[in-house]
């Protein structure tokens, strides 16, 4: 019985122990956020590009672009808590740019304007590269 209690006690403590051992640092958390931002920005780009080529239906493109924007807003809220100072300012600026560009893409999709989508897609690619560079820079010790 005593042995069983020890096993149950150990089992219950295991999650706490593992959580404590693996708690990520603030830098790790920011890096993770940057990866998520990059993932959703690239998704929006890929959706826009696929819609322009007629590879995805308009309702799907609209829904997914809205979802990408929603996720990026969530990231902005998270970064406001986790990042600080200059880093926070730079990241929020990039998020603002991404938000504006995805809005322009969404508008073009909404209006089925295949010409108007090219410019924001190009600018989005530049923003993605900037976010990707920041994510890589955060990997440096």
């Amino acid at each position, binding site marked *: 019985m005593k042995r069983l209690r020890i096993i149950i006690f150990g089992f219950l403590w295991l*999650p706490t122990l*593992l959580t404590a051992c693996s708690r990520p640092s603030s830098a790790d958390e920011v890096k993770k956020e940057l990866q998520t931002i990059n993932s959703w920005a690239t998704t929006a780009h890929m959706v826009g590009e696929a819609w322009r080529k007629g590879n995805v239906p308009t309702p*799907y493109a609209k829904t*997914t672009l809205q979802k990408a924007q929603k996720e990026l807003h969530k990231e902005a809220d998270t970064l406001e808590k986790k990042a600080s100072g200059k880093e926070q300012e730079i990241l929020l600026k990039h998020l603002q740019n991404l938000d504006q560009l995805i809005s322009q893409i969404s508008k073009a999709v909404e209006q089925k304007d295949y010409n108007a989508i090219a410019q924001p897609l190009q600018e989005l690619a530049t923003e993605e590269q900037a976010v990707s560079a920041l994510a890589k820079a955060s990997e440096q010790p």
Partner: protein
Amino acid sequence: MNKILMIALGILTSIGGFLDVGAIATAAEAGSEFGYQLIWAILLGTICVIFLVEMSGRLAAASKHTLADAIRERFGISFYIIPLIAEVFVDFLVLAAEIGGVCIALQLVTGISFQWWALPVAFAIWILLWKGTLGLIENGISTLGLITLVFVFATFKLHPSLTQLGAGILPTLPREDVTHYLFIAVSILGALISPYLFYFYSSGAVEDKWDEEYIGVNRMIAGVGMGFGSIVSLGVLIVAALVLHPKGIQVDSYEQAALMLTETFGYWGFILFAASLGIACFGAALEVSLDTAYIVAQTFGWNWGESLHPKEAARFSLVYTVFVFLASLLMLVGIDPLQLTLFSMAITTLTLPPVILPFLVLMNDKSYVGEYRNGWITNSVLIFTIALAFILAIVAIPLEIIGG
């Protein structure tokens, strides 16, 4: 039915029915985040599931007992109640996730939010269970599931590096995000080694009146069918690794996964993804609903059988009716289908030990399987699988908290 035709149909339906919401979600997430690094998890899960499915079928053919019947009879109701409750709970989550998969497939094509599809999809599942037969569900829907082979064709078209694929066969840890990597590995194993498969397969075998003559058929269906079926799962992982991983897209929602086939097949790639997701999840939803009705009816000694008229098995039919409706409510309230899928796959691993452990006794008990007892190879794999199941059950929740 001619045995060769039966084996061929069995293999085809095993391939077509291999993918479900869990296999698609976990393989897509694994490929997009860790490239080929989690191929080993799919291979390991496949080996375990081949042996366990073969044993479920052999038990049914040799003893004329379903797995649920045999566990209850051999160990008593006080033992069986644990796996029963666990299985019903997990089936509920998995069914909700499968319904979610069908709803998402419809959302992808129509743009109408998945929540609106929850009740119509539940009704479609119910009407097919009410009016259909086991043959229709086993063969008809699973044959439609062959559409999922599109992931294998896409793999060939994308020309993956064989050296890199080979490297994925050996388990290696990533440089970062180790806990998330392990969580995905556990989820892949949970998705592949699904307890509902064993209960469903053995119940189907008893309903189809298998006897000792079917031992060979069973072995072929389990080995070849499941083996080839896993290639579809590998296809999802490889395509995600080749298309999404290099761009840095991590699959956090099905909308992202839907882009996997558009670069290879254009607009049809998108449609084929939605169709694969919808059909695979619809087929699995039928099986999970039936599985729950089977195990509950078998526990209480009620009449059961999908091929019986609902009037002849009223309580059996009532179980799946209530179950399908309740599971659809989870989607109706708007729970994220992908998150629910990953959660239910991790929870599935918790139920594995009480479900798999009885195999060791039953499959070595002469009074059940007679001369068809396990050999040393089967027993070795079974003991390894039981050990794996215990490890998975212990680490699943901590990994869910830390890396999920």
